């Protein structure tokens, strides 16, 4: 029995090794075969041999950045309210809202970005006119996706702050707001930072929303305009995988898929390790 269970646990290490082997192998294939200038070609058009890395990396960062602009105030505000202000009854009513929002699949938010956010929000904000597919709508939807995640991790961190700290603050005559912002938030700061890092990492790896709403299906020029189309690492990967000539086929398209996957894996892994660090320092303190 013991060996059987141990094998199951060891399988997780095997999966990690397989991810690294499979991805690094093909990614190396790509790097060794591609002309290096093609990686700075001013646009991402894999079928034409233009693999501009800055286009997809900045596109990813731009959309994740817009997402964080939405998710940080909403997520942290909700977390502080739930942890410090809400009565048990209000908490019982409001917390499920975040839980339901967290269970909405990303493809649904992709539909929402394209069919509701883009026509009703972005096209009113962008005075110079905007495309139906745009980075702004995708970014806002990514923010909606990440909000419950940030809220729940940050709330856990603030909930773990001992009551005695709050009582000491009230004993000195501090008000609720002062106690929340000057005592509880600093005490939980590493958990809150971890929440932001996890949220950002999730935003970088989000796929369906950008594949549907950002409009990079046919490749994209370098762009940072939130009113216009853009390309991200994840959307570039889905476009390669659903391309009419299938994934196998045109010589460098298949390995380039793995190269982009490798970049994404490396980014998110680094962020996850960083957030682990922050979470651990909370646990050490109390």
């Amino acid at each position, binding site marked *: 029995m*013991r060996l*059987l*269970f*141990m*094998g*199951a*646990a*060891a399988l*997780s*290490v095997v*999966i*990690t090794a*397989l*991810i690294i082997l*499979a991805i690094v192998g*093909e990614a190396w294939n790509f790097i060794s075969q591609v002309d290096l200038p093609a990686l700075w070609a001013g646009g991402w058009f894999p079928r034409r041999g233009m693999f501009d890395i800055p286009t997809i990396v900045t596109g990813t960062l731009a959309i994740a950045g817009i997402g964080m602009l939405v998710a940080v105030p*909403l997520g*942290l*505000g*909700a977390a*502080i*309210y*739930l942890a410090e*202000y809400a009565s048990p009854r209000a908490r019982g009513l409001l917390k499920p*809202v*975040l839980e*339901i*929002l967290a*269970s*909405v*699949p*990303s*493809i*649904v938010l*992709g*539909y*929402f970005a*394209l*069919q*509701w956010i883009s026509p009703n929000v972005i096209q009113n904000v962008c005075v110079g006119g905007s495309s139906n597919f745009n980075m702004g709508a995708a970014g806002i939807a990514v923010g*909606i996706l990440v909000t419950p995640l940030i*809220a729940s991790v940050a709330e856990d961190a603030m909930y773990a702050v001992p009551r005695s700290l709050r009582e000491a603050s009230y004993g000195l005559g501090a*008000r*609720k*707001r002062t106690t929340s912002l000057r005592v509880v938030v600093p005490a939980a700061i590493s958990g809150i930072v971890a929440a932001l890092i996890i949220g950002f*990492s999730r935003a*970088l*790896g989000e*796929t369906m929303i950008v594949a*549907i709403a950002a409009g990079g299906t046919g490749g994209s020029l370098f762009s940072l305009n939130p009113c216009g189309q853009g390309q991200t690492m994840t959307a570039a990967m*889905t476009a390669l*995988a*659903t391309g009419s000539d299938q994934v196998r086929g045109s010589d460098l398209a298949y390995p380039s898929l793995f190269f982009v*996957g490798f970049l*994404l*894996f490396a980014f*998110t*892994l680094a962020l*996850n390790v960083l957030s*682990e660090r922050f979470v651990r320092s909370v646990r050490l303190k109390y």
Partner: protein
Amino acid sequence: MTNLASSTSVSAEMVRERISGRRVDVGGRTFEVFLLIALLASLAILVTLLVDVFSRGSGVYLERGLDFLVSPLSSEASGAGIGQGLFGSLALMLIVALTAFPIGIGAAIYLEEYARDTTPTRFITANIRNLAGVPSIVYGLLGLAVFVVALRDFTGPESQGRSILSGGLTLAIVVLPIVIITTSEALRAVPTGIREAAYGVGATRWQTVRSHVIPYAAPGILTGTILSMARAFGETAPLIMVGGAVSFLATSDRGLLETIQGKYTTLPTSIYQWVQEPQRAFIELSAAGIMALLVTILMVNGIAIFLRNRYARRW
């Protein structure tokens, strides 16, 4: 004189106010209102999303009734439905349940009940936490390289590896870390006293785990596995990588092996296909598909929360 009198009366008023403590903390109230608005914004977004989906999608159900739920994929919007998608998604869920659950629960039992706190154990635990943070599309790449290309002879020579089996195993890997983490939490919540009592009457470790720890942790394990199932049901990106989007289910009569090695489509990938079409009819189809997806996921989550509350134990 009068000046002095009035100023004393004002300060007496202030003193009274301060003693009764009825001054309104304007800054504090505004802050609280802002926090509440942040929370209510999430509610407003959720309501807007549901209203939009239902107002666009319900027409399809009113017009065609259950026909939409059983019709196959089709390029004609009037005849297209989610029959094949539902079949494919359910088949994938079955594979996930048969593979990810035993392996995930087994791994959690090893890490919580058997393993000593050594460097390799800590490495495995950290590794699992990191796997949970890997974007699902990266698992799609893994599925593409391993199940679709390398193991093609096993996963489906005729469908070029783009089979139900490849899709199901890929999804199983996506949810495996979640199953391990939630099961570990459920096991950790069982008090040590229960285990010590079992050892005290001479039970072996496996007997303790089987007849004491697992029964007490069962509601938590069940909730975790059901929630991970809901997550797998809506997962789209890895299925696009391993070829769920471009395939149609063959309708001829086939055996079990041929079916799971055959081509397929799923509910979320059907929605992805429709949402990319510019015609209004297809947008309505995608909204109707999303209705089916959301109702299923919310129902499954509801069942999980009900089970958790019904069987939750307080120590």
